[in-house]
């Protein structure tokens, strides 16, 4: 059937449409390639200009060439037309081209629908709370455009359509939430279009000199951790990531050809175990982080023989998992092949290394004494902890230990591990994060990339694997306080800064923490919502026995209920409210009819009053006064609030006695 309001012209709409389109595309400024952004801005500018100067409006051929050049531009920038980045760019180009020619109602519909799609492409780049709120508002504006083309006259102001749209949106929120909670999440993509071009920051599985100091430049959040009980002290908060066994003298790694036998390790823990939740940002690596040492693996991963949490696939989505760890532990006996691997040496040993270790060995009676000697060595000699160490080329460990003596945690950890192996003590390198900032508002820790750290583990006969952090021997404050890299200047040395900024700085910091706390809740309940949550929720509600079909029916029922509530609400909302004066007058008539004086259908208030007064002369003055007020309020030119109030109060007080008593009785 033909649309009813179809023929109504919409000359006032292209400008709001262009502006809303601008708002829709704004967050893409950071996501899309610069030439694509320039193209979009140019076309939008052209559109807005052509609305003021109609002769600038492009003709069909010009539009066609703009379309072709847009597609070509996207292709040259991304070398494809599918996948996340190219797809988002192509959609943005489509939107802007549709807006260029939008004049008819049909075009506006299509533009708005495309811009709905553009909204969700933003979430492939950024999922922050702020952006989501912004895009929600943008969606309301887009929908308000639809509202505008379905009425006859344009809205008198901006608020009317926006408020109506906001109302409709709010009424739709319950449905959205029901579907969000219930709709089954599929853990693997339907088809793989590539995970995007932007590299994710985080630890890599290979330590080369300088690898970690690069990370220190970044304040990006690696993960957040929330303890179920009181958290351990900063010196104990070593977040274990991965363990590196092998070295070629230059870099450290774990040879993928020689995977560790997966013996589940038995730990005797002396202290109490700590339960915590981790909200891990996607880092495109297959390992999870845990507090040193993990006692058991979460559902998503397995616990390896060297206490790593490993997954089958790299993590590309935010993940929440529960951890259980202890900081005070004894590990079981070392297997022969593990011992062999933990003693393996690279070919770049020098005589001065051997001499050094031999000196320690001679003076130490056992292994743990030797470890202490080694730490003393780092402490007593002029070692410097710095983010900008000199570049060690040929034999980085040797040059660092004996010449430069300036280094970052990876230098200390690798050097120490190598010396331990030389001394015959099984040792390995551990990568992870250390410390983390406590967020008081949310009661959790934020661990950022600049908290990345490397340390060693040595095997001592009486204690098993023991964590040794040689960096702490040189710069104990590194372990107690977080580093803040000076992000303002590229390459400037990182400073140890204990946060005592001014009042403004501290307020700002507080605000930032509050905002981060909101973001965490957002991540936990919205972004990180997963299949596991769904299952645990259903189990928690005791509904896990239901089949998917039953769940489908329940969902439909819930949505129908929600719609019913909205339907009843909007039906009642519009019901005619009777003029209160009439209702009050009717009450007056009811009181009189109790006395047997009924108002006849044809009788006007005046006639009724005359008749009633004749029947009950004792009430005549009251009846006359009330009727007079009623006539004045109902038919008079102005109704005064004072009259209205006196009218209601007089009717309220009008309680005539049933029987008429003559006064002289």
């Amino acid at each position, binding site marked *: *059937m033909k*649309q*009813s*309001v179809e*023929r*109504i012209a919409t000359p006032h709409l292209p400008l709001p449409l262009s502006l809303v389109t601008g708002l829709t595309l704004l967050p893409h400024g950071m996501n899309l390639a610069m030439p694509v952004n320039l193209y979009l801005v140019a076309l939008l500018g052209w559109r807005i200009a052509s609305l003021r100067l109609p002769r600038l409006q492009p003709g069909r051929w010009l539009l066609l060439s703009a379309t072709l050049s847009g597609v070509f531009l996207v292709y040259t920038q991304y070398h494809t037309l599918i996948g*996340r980045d190219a797809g988002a760019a192509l959609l943005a180009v489509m939107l802007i081209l549709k807006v260029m020619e939008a004049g008819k109602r049909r075009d506006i*519909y*299509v533009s708005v*629908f495309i811009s*709905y*799609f553009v*909204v*969700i*492409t933003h*979430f*492939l780049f950024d*999922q922050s709370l702020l952006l*989501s709120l912004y895009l*929600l508002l943008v*969606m309301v504006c887009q929908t308000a455009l*639809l*509202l505008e*083309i*379905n*009425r*006859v*006259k344009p809205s008198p102001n901006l608020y009317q359509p926006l408020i*109506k*749209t906001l109302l*409709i949106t709010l*009424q*739709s*929120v319950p*449905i*959205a*939430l029901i*579907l*969000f909670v219930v*709709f089954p*999440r599929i853990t693997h*993509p*339907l*088809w793989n*279009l590539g995970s995007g071009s932007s590299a994710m920051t985080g630890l890599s599985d290979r330590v080369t000199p300088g690898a970690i100091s690069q990370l220190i430049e970044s304040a990006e959040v690696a993960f957040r951790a929330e303890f179920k009980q009181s958290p351990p002290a900063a010196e104990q908060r070593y977040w274990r990531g991965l363990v590196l066994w092998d070295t070629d003298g230059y870099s450290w790694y774990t040879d993928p050809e020689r995977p560790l036998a997966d013996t589940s390790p038995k730990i005797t823990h002396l202290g109490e175990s700590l339960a915590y939740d981790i909200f891990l940002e996607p880092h495109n690596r297959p390992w999870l982080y845990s507090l040193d040492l993990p006692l058991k693996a979460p559902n998503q991963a397995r616990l390896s023989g060297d206490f790593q949490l490993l997954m089958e696939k790299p993590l590309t*989505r935010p993940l929440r998992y529960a951890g259980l760890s202890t900081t005070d532990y004894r590990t079981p006996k070392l297997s022969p092949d593990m011992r062999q691997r933990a003693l393996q040496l690279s070919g770049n040993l020098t005589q001065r290394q051997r001499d050094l270790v031999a000196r320690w060995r001679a003076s130490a009676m056992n292994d743990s004494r030797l470890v202490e000697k080694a730490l003393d060595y780092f402490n007593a000699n002029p070692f410097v902890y710095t983010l900008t160490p000199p570049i060690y080329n040929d034999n980085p460990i040797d040059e660092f230990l004996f010449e430069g003596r300036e280094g970052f945690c990876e230098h200390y950890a690798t050097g120490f591990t190598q010396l331990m192996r030389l001394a015959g003590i099984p040792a390995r390198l551990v990568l992870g994060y250390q410390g983390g900032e406590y967020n008081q508002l949310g009661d959790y820790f934020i661990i950022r990339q600049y908290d990345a750290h490397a340390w060693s583990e040595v095997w001592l006969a009486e204690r098993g694997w023991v964590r040794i952090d040689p960096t702490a021997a040189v710069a104990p404050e590194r372990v107690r306080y977080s580093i803040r890299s000076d992000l303002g200047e590229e390459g400037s040395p990182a400073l140890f800064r204990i946060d005592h900024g001014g009042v403004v700085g501290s307020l700002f910091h507080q605000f930032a923490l509050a905002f981060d706390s909101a973001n965490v809740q957002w991540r936990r309940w*919205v*972004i*990180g919502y997963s299949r596991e949550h769904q299952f645990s929720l259903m189990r928690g509600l005791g509904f896990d026995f239901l089949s998917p079909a039953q769940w489908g029916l329940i969902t439909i029922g819930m*949505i129908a209920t929600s*719609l019913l509530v*909205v*339907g009843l609400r*909007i*039906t009642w*909302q*519009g*019901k*005619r*409210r009777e003029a209160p004066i009439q209702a009050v007058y009717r009450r007056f008539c009811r009181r009189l009819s109790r006395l047997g004086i009924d108002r006849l259908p044809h009788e006007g208030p005046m006639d009724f009053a005359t008749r009633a007064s004749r029947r009950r002369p004792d009430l005549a003055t009251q009846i006359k006064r009330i009727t007079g007020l009623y006539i004045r309020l109902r038919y008079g030119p102005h109704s005064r609030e004072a009259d209205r109030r006196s009218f209601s109060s007089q009717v309220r007080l009008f309680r005539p006695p049933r029987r008429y008593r003559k006064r002289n009785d």
Partner: protein
Amino acid sequence: MPALPVDQWLRRFRRRARPDRRGGVSVKPRSIYILPTKQGMLLAVVILLMLTGSINYGSNLGHLMTFLLGGIWLTAILHTWRNLLGLGLQPRQVASVFAGQTADFTLLMVNVSALDRFGITLKCKKISGDSVDIPANDQRLLHLLIPTHARGELPLPDISLHTSYPLGLFHAWTYARLDLRCLVYPKPAGSGEPPSAPVYTRSDTGDRGFGADDFVGLRNFRPGDSPRHIDWKAHARERGLLSKQFGGDRTEEVRLDWDLLPKSDQEKRLSLLCRFILQAEEREQSYGLRIPGQKIESGMGSVHRQRCLTTLARFGADNETIR
């Protein structure tokens, strides 16, 4: 255009709002039909695409936004429905027209609710009437222009109210039948002279008020007097509206007799008679009408004209009632 039989059959089951005692209708909850529009279906497809994309990229926010949009899609049904619910429609008037002209049915749309209504279109079959926005507790006059083809009484056909407010995703409509009839006069024939010569009758009693030859005097203006007879000069002197009275020694009278017309089709004769009435009125001749079963005495003026034309329009229909 012949309606499909299925269509006709379906029409019998159509829910319509029926007039109340005062002749008006109001839209009842269960008489509203609602279906997605083309745009609504397009958006449904877009939502499915968005869902596919969100699943593929595992974007929970994408899911959330998609579901919100789906919720809006569903909620729009209710709002579109509500936009029609409870609207009142009352018949107002329709002026008589000649066959072939367009009848202007005027209806009053009343919004007795605290809710503004927008984008409501009145339609009759394929003919679109006015589209209006009606604020809360307000009313608007709507016109529906329906072309006429044949003389007789043209009842207002089943009308429908349409809306796709707020979002244009759904199209809600409802049918109503109002008792409003347009009297359609026969279409005046192209040309022709009355077959009978004017009959001149002497008037002994004086014929004030008849004829057009001699000025007789002035009298107060009465509605129906020709504006040409108004004494405008007197009016300019602020003596009020006065009509000039003319008289003559003879009265020109036209007898319009069915039997005197050349034998032809009934409708053709009626349309000839119609033309003669208009012509006589124009020439200010008095005329009488005689058609089978009915006779109207000679007379003049708009009331007389209307009576004659009505007789012509109803010819045949009245015969049936007589039988």
